């Protein structure tokens, strides 16, 4: 009997200790994540200038459907998403397989070189890209000198090329980052699997598509979700390279939120609504990706 009581004591005690450890984190998360999220949700049902907010019901949400700027920014974001994310994932996968080759010399150098863009500041690299792709920038000068083009390409001020510039920029910045995930996952794949495949006469492409890709599936899923979220929140590059222009040809949802809150007469209520639109999109995409990539029994 006494033993049982002592054990109970120990149990409650460890419980209390462990709760007190996580209590700090829980309180912090509630105060700095959930409370603002709920406040933003409440705010998304309000409208008005600056501090003169009043409740307008679901007006803000219906406004989304008639707001042509919102539609344009949404389309732009989707174009980035559909073109850039698969491109980057494939590129990262390809490079990581190349770099995982046992016979490759200077492995460390190549890995560092490809990962390096991921540690540069978003603003710094954006500014450099803006100059590289300027009308008189290095890229145009190079293409002109090589006689690949006869007139300079308007990388920043043409609606089509501006999107291309943004896509090139974010691909350059984030490919190395995703590559690291693949590389570490590749190193966990047992070499004997490849050996067995080679003995059975599988080609390099067969090995890649039948062994590497299926075994990397969870990582591919993870990187595509994080890249999707990253693209939906894209801001720094567009803000610094094209300022969303020409017109709003490259403007993203995040930049529209910024404009609504800080560039125009502030309407924080509607800005909160647009940010909740992003939240909803992220949830939908993540669920979709899980469904598409998930195992049949998972």
């Amino acid at each position, binding site marked *: 009997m006494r033993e049982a009581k002592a054990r109970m004591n120990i149990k409650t005690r460890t419980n209390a200790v462990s709760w007190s450890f996580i209590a700090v984190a829980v309180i912090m998360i509630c105060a700095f994540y959930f409370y603002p999220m709920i406040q933003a949700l409440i705010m998304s049902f309000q409208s008005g200038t600056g*501090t003169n907010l009043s409740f307008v019901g679901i007006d803000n949400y219906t406004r989304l459907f008639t707001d042509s700027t919102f539609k344009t920014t949404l389309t732009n974001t989707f174009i980035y998403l559909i073109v850039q994310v698969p491109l980057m994932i494939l590129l990262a996968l390809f490079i990581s397989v190349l770099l995982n080759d046992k016979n490759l010399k200077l492995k460390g150098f190549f890995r560092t070189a490809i990962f390096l863009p991921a540690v540069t500041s978003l603003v710094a690299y954006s500014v450099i890209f803006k100059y590289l792709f300027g*009308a008189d920038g290095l890229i145009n000068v190079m293409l002109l000198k090589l006689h690949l083009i006869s007139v300079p390409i308007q990388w920043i001020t043409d609606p089509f090329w501006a999107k291309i510039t943004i896509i090139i920029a974010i691909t350059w910045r984030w490919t190395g980052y995703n590559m690291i995930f693949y590389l570490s996952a590749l190193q966990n794949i047992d070499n004997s699997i490849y050996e067995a495949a080679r003995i059975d006469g599988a080609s390099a492409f067969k090995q890649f598509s039948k062994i590497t890709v299926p075994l990397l599936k969870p990582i591919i899923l993870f990187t595509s979700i994080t890249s999707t979220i990253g693209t939906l929140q894209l801001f720094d590059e567009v803000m610094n390279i*094209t*300022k969303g222009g*020409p*017109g709003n040809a490259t403007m993203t949802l995040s930049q529209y939120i910024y404009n609504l809150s800080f560039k125009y*007469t502030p309407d924080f209520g509607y800005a909160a609504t647009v940010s909740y639109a992003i939240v909803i999109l992220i949830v939908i995409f993540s669920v979709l990706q899980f469904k598409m990539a998930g195992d049949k029994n998972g």
Partner: protein
Amino acid sequence: MKKIIVLLLVSIMILSACSSATNNDNNAGETAETSKITIWAWDPNFNIKALNLAKDAYTADNADVTIDIIENAQNDIVQKLNTGLSSGTTKGLPNIVLIEDYRAQSFLQAYPDAFYPLTDTFKAADFAEYKIGPTSVDGQNFGLPFDSGVTGLYVRTDYLEQAGYSIEDMQNITWDQYIEIGKAVKEKTGKDWISLDPNDLGILRMMAQSAGSWYLKEDGKTADLSGNAALKEAFETYKKLMDANVVKIHADWSQFVANYNSGDVASVPTGNWFTPSITAAADQSGKWAIAPLPKLTNNPASVNASNLGGSSWYVLNVPGKEKAAEFLGATLGSNVELYQKLVMEIGAIGTYKPAAEGEAYNAANPFFGGQKIVSDFASWTAEIPNVNYGMHTYAVEDILIVEMQNYLNGKSIDQVMTDAQKQADSQIK
């Protein structure tokens, strides 16, 4: 169990210590603020220099006041003010802040009670009339008008001569004549006539204001796009410029300045604050002149003067506001001598009328071939039509930037204006 109680007690003590520490800070801040004035402004070569001159003038007589001038980019100031004022706490905000005239109403009306009225601090009648509208609400003055955004047409006289024109041909012309001369210059010299950023419709704003018109109606809240004759003609003129193939495109400020400093582009219609950027290319001394801004060809209301940019000083409704207002009133609100210094040392043209008669205003500028540019600008300032910039200048402009692209790509002008109006009506309320 004891340990947990101890742990809890310690954490409570730490937490309360933290909060009491911040309380102390608050009190200390408030007492210190009464003798310290913090000012936020942008542009080290212009506004900050002007503030330093004002500070020197003021602290000579008021040694007990500390003036802390903080330089921030304009976008950062706008963002910090918006976050600060909307959060409801005035902590961390300055006593005095510089706000662009286009944005002033947006702040004044979005945050009522956040600004301290300056009606008794300075005589509004002493300042250029067109600055009073944007800086006041319901007849109360909230902003002390500062620099003039009066526009002029900066032009390379050497390129003009090569094309068979002189600066006399540029006086009081229309935009159509301006484009014709531009074509001749391009043909003879191969130089572009003007550098434009498709994302910045400043030239449209100048054209509209020259005819006493704006993106918004008199009330400052309703969009005035479809049926706005001045704006329609401004759109058409913009397209004519583009079609004339005399435009070099830039994407940001540094490219814009570089286009002129490198001698690639021959003229720029813009605000007088562009002078330091032109004179930065010392090798072009004597090759520039400034003509009045062209006017709209078919709009009888349009004059050869307009405004672009310009800003004013505002006092925030925080402890220390009386001192801050007194500082502004004593310096930029009434000190004629200070304005002379502003002109001589930094080329800043104020909107304080009594200062316009001083010697500094009549000095000849050798860079501009001996032209008395300050007195020219001052006389054009008097002609600027007064418009209400309202609350939504930049929101409407972003709509127009998109519609301008559609127009250049072949959409009809009436459709463009109707669509822009529709969008603006749904966006601004």
